[in-house]
């Protein structure tokens, strides 16, 4: 398993994406899926960073990357309370389209990142922990343990 904890700064999200892709590649995730891993992990970390910056900027965002049983799993955990429930992808897209037409006001990213993740990873679980929200996502892998 690889664990990463980082200060909730937008600049560190890129580092998190790079680490996730490196571990995914080493774990035997197909090259054709690496772009999806990169985007999904980036979205999860961006959401967590924004939540921490609002609620707990001193707390680190945590990522766990594991490979076992033919799956590569990434869990991004935040410690921020009161995150809104993720919307359905269609609702998020409609909201964006509405905003483009001039019907919306700000908040474009609300839940959109999670909606994107839901489309990119095979198996996505979004759960509330004692501290905040945990986003778990996985892809098929061919290698042993990461």
């Amino acid at each position, binding site marked *: 398993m690889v664990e990463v904890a980082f200060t909730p700064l937008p600049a560190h999200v890129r580092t998190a994406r790079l680490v996730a892709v490196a571990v995914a590649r080493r774990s035997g995730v197909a090259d054709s899926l690496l772009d999806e891993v990169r*985007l999904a992990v980036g979205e999860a970390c961006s959401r967590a960073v924004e939540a921490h910056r609002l609620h707990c900027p001193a707390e680190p965002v945590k990522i766990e990357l594991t490979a076992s049983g033919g799956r590569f799993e990434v869990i991004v955990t935040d410690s921020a309370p009161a995150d809104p429930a993720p919307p359905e992808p269609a609702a998020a*897209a409609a909201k964006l389209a509405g*905003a*483009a037409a001039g019907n*919306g006001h700000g908040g474009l990213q609300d839940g959109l*990142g999670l909606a*994107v993740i839901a*489309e990119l990873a095979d198996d996505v679980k979004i759960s509330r922990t004692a501290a905040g929200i945990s986003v778990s996502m996985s892809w098929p892998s061919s290698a042993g343990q990461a």
Partner: protein
Amino acid sequence: MDLKLDDHLKDGIRVVDVEGEIDVYTAPRLRELLIDLVNKGDYQLVVNMEKVEFLDSTGLGVLVGGLKRVRAHDGSLDLVCRQERILKIFRITGLTKVFGIHDTVEEAIKARKSEK
């Protein structure tokens, strides 16, 4: 890599060349540029994304924000992109129906001119 931004006028349309990664860290710079251009009276925009290596939902939000601003002045914001990995996020979010997405800057300008 970081984000590189440049812009120039071509046939009366402001072309914004974007290179690198558009994410939660870099997207504010693109947002500032689009706002700046609109404030200066550039309402016909083409954003050339051929050299964009990564785009996330934060970047999508900035592009939608730009589109909203130019439409408030009866303007337009078209995109140039042929990269499948970038186009995928537009499809996932349904934004292929919102933006005009073209293969080249020339095609984007031609399509915009023909609509006038």
